[in-house]
């Protein structure tokens, strides 16, 4: 059954790889932008799944890390740092530190209280970004220059940013699954199912959860950095709690804790919003019930429709 989900993922990655060429040839190149949006959402959602699906920690502050990644790019560029790898390292360091401090406090609680505290920290990050007057404040900031990879424009719209995003997507997919199956991931899942049992076995539940929180935050910052680079624009909207909510919706629709849930959910959400939006202006009237339908009728999310038996955390 694990092969089935591998097959699904491989198929999606292959389609994503040939999509720009096909769309270009059929005169629908504008759709590659949507695919990039879906891939970037999927990266952030995969990271969130490490917390929610594997760790049982429902965070409403995940988009703060996306915002951090995006603003590190914008501020770094303004400061004259152009190497995307250097900016990436800074983003990872800032997001990791923010996660370490806020996570250490938030993880004193669990359940609804954890959700509320992560929401509060997320809002703190959001309002901090809106107050950055030098970088556009509320309105955001257009990036007039973009980051380069050793001087080349590979990681830009003018180059092959699509392929860069796809590569990061595949790497994240691989990494998150790998972590889930590792010793660390096993402890994380045990702590989700039964924290007292994990503690009695000799594991510090707090330390494992905090580590997961830091890893998830760092991965989300990569999604944020690439989002800014691809949009050529940053805005505090990236860090709103509604965006965190979108990421949770993606996970639930795709299949919480499943190998391909975040990927399927992100593609579905972006496609559904676009298709419905094209048909009628009041598309949200249909979008809402559609999500309810998916959650009710595809228990275990879209993942369980495509690869039955692989649903559920830890597979």
């Amino acid at each position, binding site marked *: 059954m694990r092969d089935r989900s591998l097959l699904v993922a491989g198929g999606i990655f292959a389609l994503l790889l040939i999509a720009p060429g096909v769309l270009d040839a059929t005169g629908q190149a504008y759709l590659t932008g949507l695919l990039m949006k879906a891939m970037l959402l999927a990266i952030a959602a995969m990271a969130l799944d490490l917390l929610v699906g594997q760790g049982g920690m429902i965070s409403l502050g995940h988009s703060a890390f996306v915002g951090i990644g995006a603003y590190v790019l914008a501020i770094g560029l303004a400061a004259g740092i152009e190497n995307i790898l250097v900016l990436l390292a800074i983003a990872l360091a800032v997001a990791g530190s923010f996660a370490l401090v806020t996570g250490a406090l938030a993880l004193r609680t669990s359940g609804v209280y954890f959700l509320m505290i992560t929401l509060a920290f997320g809002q703190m990050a959001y309002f901090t970004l809106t107050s950055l007057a030098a970088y556009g404040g509320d309105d955001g900031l257009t990036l007039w220059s973009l980051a380069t990879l050793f001087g080349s424009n590979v990681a830009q719209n003018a180059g092959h940013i699509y392929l860069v995003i796809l590569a990061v997507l595949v790497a994240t997919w691989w990494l998150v699954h*790998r*972590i889930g*199956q*590792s*010793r*660390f*991931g*096993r*402890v994380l*899942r*045990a702590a989700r*199912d*039964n924290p*007292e*049992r*994990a*503690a*009695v*076995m*000799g*594991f*510090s*539940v707090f330390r*494992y959860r905090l*580590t997961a929180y830091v890893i998830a935050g760092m991965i989300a910052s990569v999604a944020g950095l690439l989002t800014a680079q691809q949009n050529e624009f940053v805005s505090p909207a990236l860090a709103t709690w509604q965006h965190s909510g979108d990421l949770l919706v993606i996970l639930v629709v795709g299949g919480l804790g499943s190998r391909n849930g975040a990927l399927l959910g992100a593609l579905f959400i972006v496609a559904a919003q676009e298709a419905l939006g094209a048909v009628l202006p009041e598309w949200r009237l249909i979008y809402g019930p559609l999500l309810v339908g998916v959650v009710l009728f595809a228990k275990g999310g879209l993942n369980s429709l495509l690869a039955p038996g692989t649903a*559920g*955390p*830890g597979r």
Partner: protein
Amino acid sequence: MSILEIRNLTKTFGAVRVSKEISLTVGARQCHALIGPNGAGKTTLIHQISGVLTPDAGAVLLDGTDITALPMWRRAQAGLGRTFQISSTLHSFSVLENVALAAQAKAGSSMRFFRPAATEAALNRQAEAVLDRVGLLRRARILAGDLSHGERRLLELAIALAGAPKVLLLDEPMAGLGRVESERLTDILAELRREIPMLLIEHDMDAIFRLADTVAVLVEGAVVARGTPDEVRADPVARAAYLGEESA
């Protein structure tokens, strides 16, 4: 040499003193039983020893080291194993993985992020050996959530054993078991007690008379009688408090 020593443990919930200066020691190769009517404070005592609750006063010593202030996971790392009165296994994990995870806690760092844990042969071998010991090996691949109640009691024990404990706290291991199952578990514990000292809370008198060297009778948070099983059986205070109830 005592492996586990409890000194004057005292705990109060509101106006109720649930533990009144309880002291006891469990030495090497010893099985110390704790009996008492429901509500006597047996599980509260186990919780204080294992770290779920912090005592108001008194100390818990493991192998001579004071562990009173340590969190649960550190006590487990130090060698304190326990089973739960209500089975507490990981339902979405296989039986093997439940035990392998317990072995993992004692086999180097678990801050390892890349190598799949499920295929770590050393952990699985250890887990299989423990499962064989409690007679669950043929059920190793099924989910813990699919086990029968009796099997889950055995898995509880296997998880505790896989942590290579210096001492075992057994909180009513026979709870809810039929006679045949109880006897089987008693056989297993009888074999184990030669290797691992135990503090055993149990209502099953047959098991206690077979396993325990020392029995303490707990009533309303205080030890009212203590001695060998035969002495306790003959003790009028203990009989009145507890044994009498059973035969009545």
